[in-house]
């Protein structure tokens, strides 16, 4: 099974929400849409589901053009960020509702609901109403309703965003298990790079209504095609700065420079953009060859096992350093940070990746 978007775009009142997009989403693995709020994840999902018609382009499912087919006929399920259940029906009736619409015999409805409730561990609450359940349980009911009807396309729109940390971890573990034996296309939208990495599969990095890159999730992380994709896939945000190559030297600022490694010799002289992940910027010297830069600390967030230090470097650029252990700094303090230049991305003037380090 596969869902195919062919040059799908959407604009509302002259404003482009989704730029022309081509994508093939396959069954058997998670397809993740990663991007910040308003990056177009939900708009794209609504086009996939058929809740919205594309302005141009086509949506194909299993080799069939479904662009004009209304959502009711498409066998789609969707789970939302809000916990959407019918408020005055019991949990059982909520889960059974898609089967009732499909006019399934009562006996089969009963066994299917029982089965899915068992998997999602809500069997003991079938007679209650959604308002009597906790957030995590309500979201499980919504998931059960989406899963009970053997959809060929299941869309998750940030389903874990409104849950507390502990529940989120629990459901994160359960989700991949639920789809292991199903033949359906799963699309999962999230704002968190760590969640995308956890689910694996394929990932689309979305930015301002366009897909910056679509491919295997790990590859997106290790070898982003362009600066946008690298920025989408970085939390805390990617540190970015201009660097000039002249001959054998990369020069970041008057004081910070490093020799050009043999593998970069083919790069032409000129200006490049480097991207450094926050955990490759240290507040102290390491054994490795690190390049020192001066930074003025804005704020240091200590979480016990990790320290996240926001500082300004190179005129007004905001940088972040994420390191193990507790490193306390006062706001306004000027100190030296160490950049692991061997692990940074080099982007050309057009934003395309030139080298992903070693």
């Amino acid at each position: 099974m596969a869902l195919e978007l062919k040059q799908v775009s959407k604009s509302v009142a002259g404003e482009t929400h989704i730029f022309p997009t081509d994508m093939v989403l396959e069954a058997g693995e998670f397809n993740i849409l990663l991007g910040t709020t308003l990056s177009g994840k939900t708009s794209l999902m609504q086009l996939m589901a058929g809740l919205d018609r594309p302005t141009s382009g086509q949506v194909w499912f299993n080799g069939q053009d479904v662009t004009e087919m209304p959502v009711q006929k498409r066998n789609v399920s969707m789970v939302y960020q809000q916990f959407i259940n019918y408020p005055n029906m019991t949990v059982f009736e909520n889960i059974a509702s898609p089967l009732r619409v499909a006019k399934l015999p009562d006996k089969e409805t009963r066994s299917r609901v029982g089965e899915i409730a068992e998997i999602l561990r809500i069997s003991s609450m079938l007679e209650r109403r959604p308002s009597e359940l906790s957030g995590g349980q309500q979201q499980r009911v919504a998931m059960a309703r989406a899963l009970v009807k053997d959809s060929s396309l299941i869309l998750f729109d940030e389903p874990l965003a409104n849950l507390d940390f502990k529940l989120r971890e629990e459901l994160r573990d359960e989700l991949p298990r639920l789809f292991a034996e199903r033949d359906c296309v799963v699309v999962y939208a999230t704002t968190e790079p760590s969640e995308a990495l956890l689910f694996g599969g394929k990932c689309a990095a979305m930015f301002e209504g366009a897909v910056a890159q679509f491919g295997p999730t790990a590859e997106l992380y290790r070898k982003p095609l362009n600066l946008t994709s690298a920025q989408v896939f970085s939390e805390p945000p990617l540190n970015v700065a201009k660097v000039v190559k002249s001959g054998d030297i990369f020069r970041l600022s008057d004081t910070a420079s490093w020799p050009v490694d043999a593998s970069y010799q083919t790069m032409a002289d000129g200006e490049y953009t480097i991207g450094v992940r926050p955990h490759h910027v240290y507040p102290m010297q390491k054994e490795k060859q690190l390049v020192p830069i001066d930074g003025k600390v804005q704020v240091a967030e200590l979480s016990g096992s990790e320290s996240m230090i926001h500082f300004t470097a190179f005129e007004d650029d905001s940088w972040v350093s994420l390191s193990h252990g507790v490193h306390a700094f006062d706001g306004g303090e000027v100190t030296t940070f160490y950049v692991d230049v061997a692990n940074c991305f080099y982007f050309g003037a057009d934003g395309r990746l030139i080298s992903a380090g070693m």
Partner: protein
Amino acid sequence: MNKTVNQKAWFLVLPVLLLVAFNALIPLMTVVNYSVQETFGDNNFFWAGVLWFEEVLRSERFHSSLGRQLFFTFSILLIEIPLGVAIALAMPRKGVWVSVCLVLMAMPLLIPWNVVGAMWNIFALPEIGLLGNTLNALGIDYNFTRQPVAAWVTLIAMDVWHWTSLVVLLAYAGLVSIPDAYYQAAKIDGASSWAIFRFIQLPKMKRVLTIAILLRFMDSFNIYTEPFVLTGGGPGNSTTLLSIDLVKIALGQFDLGPAAAMSLIYFLIILLLSWIFYTLMMRNEDQ
């Protein structure tokens, strides 16, 4: 941790206590005082016990005005609640028309009650009123100052015109608070628009509708100004609601004792019915 004992905090609640005392408690106790005494003027009072209560509860006059009151209240509830919900459902959720609709809806609520009564009185006059004259020109014999049925129709129409907006605004507030995702989920399930109303919109509006019903019930049971200006309780006694009757007894005949007893009974009826309404609707919620 030790609790801090600070008696100064009492001064902070004192203004509210004083306000409630002057507003509600002292007048109420005065009424209680009158209701158990007999007076022949000159500020001479004699103990009467529950005499006035017995008299009021047995009186034919009280029964019939209570009956008219109940009929009025339930009629307007039966019209205003469904009508208000229907109008709220028909109103746009987005765009420039939202504010236009809301302002139009709020208009009747902004008009002073006696003005509403005067407006409808003139509007419905058979000779010169737009409504009365038109109806008569169409061949319908309509004169609300002489026909009890016409008086009732006018009275109910006036209340519906004046107060349906309140139900609309409350129901609308309930409707717009439903996230879009609910409608999408229903669409995915293939639910009909009746099912959407029955299983999403109505349950989501339940709380505001409970408040709307309670407010409309209490307000309409207390109604005085508008019917007083419109019909003055007439023709005859046909539109004499409880409050109009009460004012007639208290200020027209100056029967302080029976009037006080009647107001207490009136008050207890509203309290009791509101409580029953509320418990019934909240119990439904718990089920």
